[in-house]
């Protein structure tokens, strides 16, 4: 009688061990699953378009898009445009991130400045930034600087608010400890605030990389003489949906590559953190 409950007890434990194994599939099978998913989606898109169920004009065949991408790349058509867009995005990203970081730290550390600037920052942040693009075109012309300015406004606010929040959420006791050990304001920044806010800063960098490119492309789309956004606008002008999709695809790949690089830097700088995945 006393043995009876023991046995059913043992088997759920064994079961749990078994399900645990089953719910944690290997990296390889995840990758295969992702590949299968991609093939399924693109394949059914291709088939549905070929069968005429979805309109090929609005949703060009994935194979045709890839061919167009290949044409743009192999003829070198896209590179001058990409180069311009990258210049704009990089400039917007670095200026926006730098100013956002500096102001973020400054306002977080000097309370009076934060209270002074708070309403203005809220107002500008509430402004839908896209409406700034036309005015920047007027101010800075058709060249790259109107796009840089536009991207800057996108990047700046994300980095700024994240830095502000990151610095303000630093654990008080860590600040107190460093102060008791004799830290000056600069040393506090270096040893406590920056490393502590780094998690926030990186999450803002991930988003703002995308936004820097968005800023450049939208700016180009609205008025430019070069850039991927301009190329997309050109394709759209002649109802070349394949070209529009090809531009989108190329931008996607570029953002992905940059994000991987940001990830690398992040993993290096945050290597002290406990490994969440265990």
């Amino acid at each position: 009688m006393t043995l009876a409950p023991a046995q059913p007890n043992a088997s759920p434990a064994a079961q749990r061990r078994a399900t645990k194994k089953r719910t944690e599939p290997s990296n390889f099978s995840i990758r295969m699953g992702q590949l299968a998913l991609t093939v399924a989606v693109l394949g059914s898109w291709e088939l549905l378009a070929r069968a005429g169920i979805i309109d090929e004009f609005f949703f060009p065949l994935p194979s045709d898009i890839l061919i167009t991408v290949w044409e743009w790349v192999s003829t070198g058509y896209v590179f001058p445009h990409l180069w311009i867009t990258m210049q704009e995005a990089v400039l917007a990203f670095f200026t926006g991130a730098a100013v956002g970081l500096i102001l973020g730290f400054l306002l977080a550390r000097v309370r009076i400045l934060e209270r002074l600037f708070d309403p203005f920052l809220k107002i500008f942040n509430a402004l839908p930034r896209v409406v700034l693009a036309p005015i920047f075109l007027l101010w800075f012309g058709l060249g790259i600087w109107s796009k840089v300015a536009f991207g800057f406004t996108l990047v700046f606010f994300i980095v700024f608010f994240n830095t502000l929040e990151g610095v303000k959420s630093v654990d008080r006791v860590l600040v107190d400890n460093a102060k008791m050990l004799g830290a000056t304001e600069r040393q506090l920044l270096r040893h406590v605030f920056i490393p502590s806010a780094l998690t926030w800063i990186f999450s803002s960098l991930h988003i703002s990389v995308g936004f820097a490119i968005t800023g450049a492309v939208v700016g180009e789309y609205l008025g430019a003489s070069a850039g991927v956004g301009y190329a997309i606008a050109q394709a759209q002008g002649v109802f070349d949906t394949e070209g529009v999709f090809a531009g989108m695809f190329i931008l996607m790949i570029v953002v992905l590559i940059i994000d991987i690089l940001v990830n690398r830097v992040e993993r290096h700088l945050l290597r002290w953190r406990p490994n969440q995945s265990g």
Partner: protein
Amino acid sequence: MTHPVQAEPSPYAVDLTGCTKEFATPGGGSYFAVRDIDLKVEPGRFVSIVGPTGSGKSTILNMAAGLLSPTSGTVKSFGTRIDGVNRRASYMFQQDALLPWKSVIDNVSLGLTMAGVSKADAYSESRRWLEKVGMKNFADRYPHQLSGGMRKRTAVAQAWIVNPDILLMDEPFSALDVQTRQIMENELLQLWGESGKAVVFITHDLDEAIALSDEVIILGAGPGSTVVGSYEITIPRPRDLLDIRDDPKFVELHREIWGRLKVEVSRTYASAQDEESDVA
């Protein structure tokens, strides 16, 4: 007799006079954490503060450290008024305060490197301290890779390496198991015995307070708690912490102080129950 230190009027290492601390509450009111606190600690003395939870022990320590300024009253250290943090004091916090992004050795050497000591010198000094606290094999670990006791040892090294005149300790060992705790208490007494530093030590544990200190101060129940008793611990040093609880003097002091502390603890408990029934 003509020793220069004795020649000058010996100022207190920690000197709180009539200190009251009032906190703003979220509701817009105010809460008096402590009221009219007088605390004088001579250099080389080991003073413990014991009191019920929420009685303002950490608040007092923060005022002595210069991290909080009192609403009224004065805080002095060696005769000068404290403005900003007290540069002659080190603080071991109740919570974990090691920087999680720095390895053990970088945490320990932080005080020295920030004071401008070269990295090589700071590291060799840190190694010496890590050896003293039994952490020399863990110099390259990050705090999250350490046990609670190891983190406390690191915190001891971090606080003492800058050679402060005052050591403020807020329940440093209360999170540790009994055995580790006794080892750490012994080590603390050894470190302190050779140093002549003033120690203000906060604890919940009356046994610990009596065993370690020259003086035990009892804080009343909050709000607005005050010092309700101060007891000289005359047990001779060096003390053997393993057997001290059998010492007749210890037993007698314990009975006397506990008689006073008990009243405050039960008052805290009673008011907590009142609040609960108010809420209900």
